[in-house]
């Protein structure tokens, strides 16, 4: 099992980080403060300029043919930058569904270039009550992550994957209020919306899509953690109280050490799970479950410390600390309560 990145992987990280360092802060504040949608331009640059939106898509399906280790690096960098983007809906869930279907309709290409954005209902989160009726789909689903900005919707009903034009007739998307202002969710109401049936996946294949999403979310969380550590260490190295830099106080210093220790472990867990996704797919469920169980609460604890050690400034809307805090909590609960994650792991452990 390879837990140390190759130099190519390091370069990938640098390239993504360089772009996001420049572009993400503005995009974050546009969404958070002005309610702007996902930055389509930036998303397209990630797809075309960097070519990182189809990292885990095989070359024969038009992707980069790299792998999940690489996609985890992208996820980590997106998490670090807190970029409001359809990563989870479009570049993970929809992409993995289409890869699972061996889909050659061209949609994978459009998602990979960032030209189109997709969202998926019926895989993560509550199933809703969508049913096939006549030629179209009827019913409600939600919260559907990234549906607000999506061009395409994939709706899974009883293992069958349906493709819909998100802007077409019979499709109504109602934006929801969310804990994390950098990630947009919607309820989707379908009233006989026309849909194309793309194929169907058995429960193992659907579970693989969920496990891959688990890895991507955990990777995103390690990015959140890494940024929280870096920014907190920088702040406590500057901030003076009682005549000393606050990072020299054990209460703060030791707290930062815990943040770091937790992050380094989380990174190891994610690398192992991503490696399994690529190199030992049958064994993926266990490391994916381990990563989720560990990383969910760990990421929230780290961002909670981030707010704490920033003191008053960390409690303001203007400072980014709360966005990390909310992203971490939101990611922890996105697929259900922590008990559900541990129950699944216990199952896999054969307790």
């Amino acid at each position: 099992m390879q837990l140390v990145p190759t130099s190519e992987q390091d370069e990938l990280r640098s390239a993504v980080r360089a772009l996001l360092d420049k572009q993400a802060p503005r995009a974050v504040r546009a969404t958070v403060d002005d309610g702007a949608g996902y930055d389509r331009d930036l998303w397209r640059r990630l797809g075309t300029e960097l070519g990182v939106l189809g990292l885990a898509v095989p070359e024969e399906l038009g992707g980069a043919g790299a792998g999940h280790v690489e996609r985890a690096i992208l996820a980590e960098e997106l998490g670090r930058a807190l970029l409001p983007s359809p990563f989870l809906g479009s570049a993970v869930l929809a992409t993995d569904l289409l890869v699972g279907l061996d889909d050659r309709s061209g949609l994978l290409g459009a998602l990979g270039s960032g030209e189109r954005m997709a969202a998926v209902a019926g895989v993560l989160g509550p199933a809703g009550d969508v049913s096939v009726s006549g030629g179209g789909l009827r019913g409600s689903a939600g919260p559907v992550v990234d549906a607000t900005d999506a061009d395409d919707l994939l709706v899974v009903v009883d293992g069958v994957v349906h493709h819909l034009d998100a802007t077409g007739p019979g499709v109504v998307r109602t934006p929801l209020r969310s804990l994390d202002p950098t990630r947009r969710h919607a309820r989707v109401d379908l009233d006989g919306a026309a849909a194309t049936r793309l194929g169907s996946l058995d429960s193992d294949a659907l579970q693989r899509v969920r496990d891959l999403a688990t890895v991507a979310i955990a990777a995103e969380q390690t990015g959140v953690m890494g940024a929280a550590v870096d920014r907190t260490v920088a702040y406590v190295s500057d901030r003076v109280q009682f005549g000393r830099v606050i990072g020299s106080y054990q209460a703060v210093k030791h707290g930062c050490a815990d943040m770091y220790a937790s992050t380094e472990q989380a990174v190891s867990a994610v690398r192992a799970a991503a490696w399994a996704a690529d190199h030992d797919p049958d064994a993926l469920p266990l490391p994916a479950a381990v990563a989720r169980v560990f990383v969910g609460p760990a990421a929230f604890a780290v961002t909670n410390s981030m707010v704490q050690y920033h003191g008053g400034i960390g409690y303001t809307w203007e400072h980014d600390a709360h966005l990390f805090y909310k992203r971490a909590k939101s990611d922890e609960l996105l697929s259900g309560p922590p008990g559900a994650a541990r129950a699944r792991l216990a199952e896999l452990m054969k307790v």
Partner: protein
Amino acid sequence: MAEENWRERLRTWLAEHPPPPEAHTDVAAAQRYQAQLHDAGYAGLTWPKEWGGQGLGAVEAQAFAEESAAADLPTRPFMIGMGMTGPTLVDLGTPEQKRRYLPPLLRGEEIWCQLFSEPGAGSDVASLRTRAVREPDGSWVLSGQKVWTSNAQWADVAAVLARTDPDKPKHGGITMFVLDMRQPGVTVRPLVDMTGHAPFNEVYLDEARVPADGVLGEVDGGWRAATTMLGHERVSISGMRQRRGRGVTSAALTELAQRRDVAGDPLVRDRLADLYAHERVLELFTDRMRQETAAGVPVGARGSVGKLAGALLAHRGVEVAGHVAGADAVAWEVSDDGEGPGDDLALGIASAPAASIAGGTNEIQRSIIGERVLGLPREPAADRDRPFRDAPTGEVDRAAGSHV
């Protein structure tokens, strides 16, 4: 007996004079109700009669706390005046100051705020840099920036700390002033916190004026006044917190568990019971402190136990909320009236950190307990005895966007 009669009368009065609902949102209505309370003899219970108080004892104060709890009095605009600046005026004010400020404070005619914290002076309040310069006529001119000010948006008067002598060590060159908030040199701006709401303000002082008789206590003796006042701060902050954290209490989460049909889940039950036990035990601790106070044993620095436990409880509530709500805490529908089922939950989650920061961080509370209750030695401090102008202070490069 006398106490029972008094309590009986109070109960009757409260039953006959419930606060109008709008008093919780409309400050003027709250002020009118406060005047009514005062006229009936229920404001400033333990304060001297000569300054508009009732001259009663801890027994009546305790009875009032118990009887008024259910009535949900609109006290928020008056808490700082009644709980912090008022008692400090009683202790340290000149007779003129008491006469001038206490009666309108008790009647709710003048609302107070407290201008202590600054961007560079958070936990280390004494490192404040707002300057007060004395004019030839003995009056003072104040300039600087204050933050985390509750009430400033409607306050008439402020207790403000400013540095009057930067050549003294930091605690020794501070003075407390009574400042008229209704003057051109004072600008109040709402401060949006991580919940998206703005219960606090930033206050900019740009050559704000204080007359010669506006010094509260001694010139350069402001730290003593501040210490007195800060002792009261923890109590009032915890009240505010509870309201914002109501979405993550065991009661709210038990209801949510039932609504979501997960109340039978053993894990959910386990977490709810644990949360309830911690809530209840903190209440019992607080009750015990109240009883000790009534029995003449001052709570003192042990109050930090309650503050700390309250902060940890808020975080525990957030954790339990995740177990109960799952993905429902991530995103939710907003109904036509603009509210959604996740709002209280989100407010509870987003306001939890305040409990660990505002009114003294958990770290500060633990130091207080360790040093003042357990008698452990202080941290070595580099700046205690140096002239303030030479000491390192909390300013962080403004270019980096930080301002507290």
